[in-house]
């Protein structure tokens, strides 16, 4: 195991009886993840994927000693599901659900502050320790056990980084998608901190994108605290400034939020910047060999 899961990890899936929940939980189980229970209010007592279903997380924790949760419940119920997990003593939560109202999430953040909970997501593909443990919806086949820790906030682009490092032979320790919602749980800093401490992880890839100030905030931490090699791609370097780019919103000409600014502050913090995602693997390899 690398980060966020170890031999004691026992997973409950909130929303395992739904179509998406059942499909992806089955994939996780097939990958070797110790899923011990599901929770769906009103369905307690049933069995799905040969695991018991409970009405509440509290029961699941009491009965199966679950300490980690993966959440697939619908967006308007997701905040309640996260709070229920925290209240029941779950300490790592991966929230796959997308479309959670921002007001719900800021309340969740305020309430769980100081609880020492690792919340990944929402709107996250989850996390995977290659060839060991998967808690999410990423395709399993492309991951290969190795030495690179990957953290990304650019959903499908995460897989791009994974494929690059697999193809080049470096492989991954753990890959974490922190989600692409504006209100998120763990940030780049939180995950990079874990990679820095993890003995198996030799290098770190950080995949960002234009908009927001998350990469800017991460730069200072990297400069101060990170000694491992770290490589970054920021999606959207060619996006025209002043234009609305889908969910990212309007991209400024320069300054906070623009790709140029993000790349500049990261480079100053000692991060290697690549211009295209296709270079992620080769540049990391160069670093190790060069």
């Amino acid at each position, binding site marked *: 195991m690398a980060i966020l899961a170890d031999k004691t990890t026992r997973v409950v899936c909130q929303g395992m009886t739904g179509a998406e929940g059942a499909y992806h939980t089955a994939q996780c189980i097939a990958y070797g993840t110790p899923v011990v229970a599901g929770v769906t209010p009103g369905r307690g007592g049933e069995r799905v994927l040969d695991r018991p279903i409970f009405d509440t997380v509290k029961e699941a924790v009491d009965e199966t000693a679950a300490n980690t949760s993966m959440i697939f419940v619908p967006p308007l119920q997701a905040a309640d599901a996260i709070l229920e997990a925290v209240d029941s003593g779950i300490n790592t939560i991966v929230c796959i659900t997308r479309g959670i109202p921002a007001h719900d999430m*800021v309340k969740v953040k305020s309430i769980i502050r100081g609880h020492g909970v690792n919340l990944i997501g929402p709107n996250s593909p989850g996390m995977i320790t290659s060839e060991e443990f998967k808690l999410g919806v990423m395709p399993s086949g*492309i991951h290969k056990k190795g030495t690179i820790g990957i953290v990304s906030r650019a959903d499908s682009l995460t897989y791009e980084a994974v494929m690059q490092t697999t193809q080049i032979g470096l492989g991954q320790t753990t890959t974490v998608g922190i989600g692409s919602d504006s209100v998120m749980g763990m940030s780049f800093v939180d995950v990079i901190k874990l990679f820095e401490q993890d003995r198996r992880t030799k290098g770190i890839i950080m995949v960002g994108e234009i908009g927001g100030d998350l990469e800017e905030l991460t730069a200072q931490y990297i400069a101060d605290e990170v000694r491992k090699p770290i490589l970054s791609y920021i999606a959207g370097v060619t996006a025209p400034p002043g234009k609305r780019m889908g969910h990212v919103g309007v991209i400024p000409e320069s300054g906070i939020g623009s790709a140029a600014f993000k790349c500049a502050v990261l480079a100053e913090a000692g991060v290697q910047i690549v*211009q295209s995602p*296709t270079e992620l693997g080769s540049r990391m390899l160069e670093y190790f060999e060069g």
Partner: protein
Amino acid sequence: MNLHEFQAKQLFRAAGIPVPKGEVVDTPSGAVDAARRLGGQQWMVKAQVHAGARTEAGGIRDFNDLEKLHCFAQEMLGERLITAENSPAGQPVNQLLIERPCGVKNCYHLSVMLDPRSGQVVFQGGLSECRDSAELSDQSPGNFFQVEVDPVVGLQPFQSRQLAVELRLDRTIWPPFFEITQALYRLFIAKDLLLIEIGSLVENDHGQMMVLDVRVQVDNNALVRQPELAQWADYRQDENQVLGNGLGFIAMEGDIGCIVNGSGLALATLDIIQLNGGSVANIVEIDNGASTDALANACQLVWDNGRCSCILINIVGGIVRCDKVAAGIIDGIQKYNITCPIVVRMEGTRAEEAKALFIQSDEKIEIVKTLDDAIILLIDTPES
């Protein structure tokens, strides 16, 4: 999602926040009738588009002559208003807001926004150089100050007082100001707003407070529980938008159409094509919620009646399953009779099944293994 000014003011009125008397109209004669009903000798006429800086763009004018007002309405309605804040194509003016002007003694701006990083609701205020047209565009970078509200705790009375003191409000208007701040906070929470930006919160000649100009943004994720606001969506205002059926659309000026899953991959695809000398016509982002119909619609949007000369389909499956996407796209190609070259790169969940579907479909589709391979096929002049 943005609201129109008249919609925002309707919310304010219902929340007990004072706004000028006004009517929204969609015809020139309606504009004149409205002005007559409002009475007085002077009227503000405000073009309703989802953008600021309307005054400088000629979208806000005041009149004391009904004939001139009629002419202005005739000019504006049905045209596109181009302001410093929207795209070169501008936005369509389909409604005008007619209001009685109000004498301004002091003018302030006050925003309420959700800070995603801190998770706080931020009130930001400052003095405003007020004009009677009273619309916020570029603020002179004056003395802004802010008060952060924990959304679990809510706005406390002392925070309203801090705002009043920082704004140096005359004490006689503290009570209405406190009511307005509390009403704004309640509205912000109750309606799942991401932004309330009051360009001109004025103290008028009678010592009353009133909101002359406001922009409001609603959380798209919350529209399912805000049905009354969802009805107010005006998709004509935004060329690039999340379409609500699991598709997002970004219009560009080039010739390569792209269908991609996820915004990160969309941006990366844009980067790779453009860094290799290509140019993108448009990008449709699809997400997990996209139905087969929506996927077919994605093809139509990208194809745009032949505007693009080739199409790249770049999907890395995760929660999105490649085979489902492939089926929808094949439908779309046939339905909309798309004739240009199509290059497909699919990886991840059920990618092999998807490729098999494309091969079976008999459409002229090139399947490639990597993005670099796709680029070679798409771009005629790779050396540029």
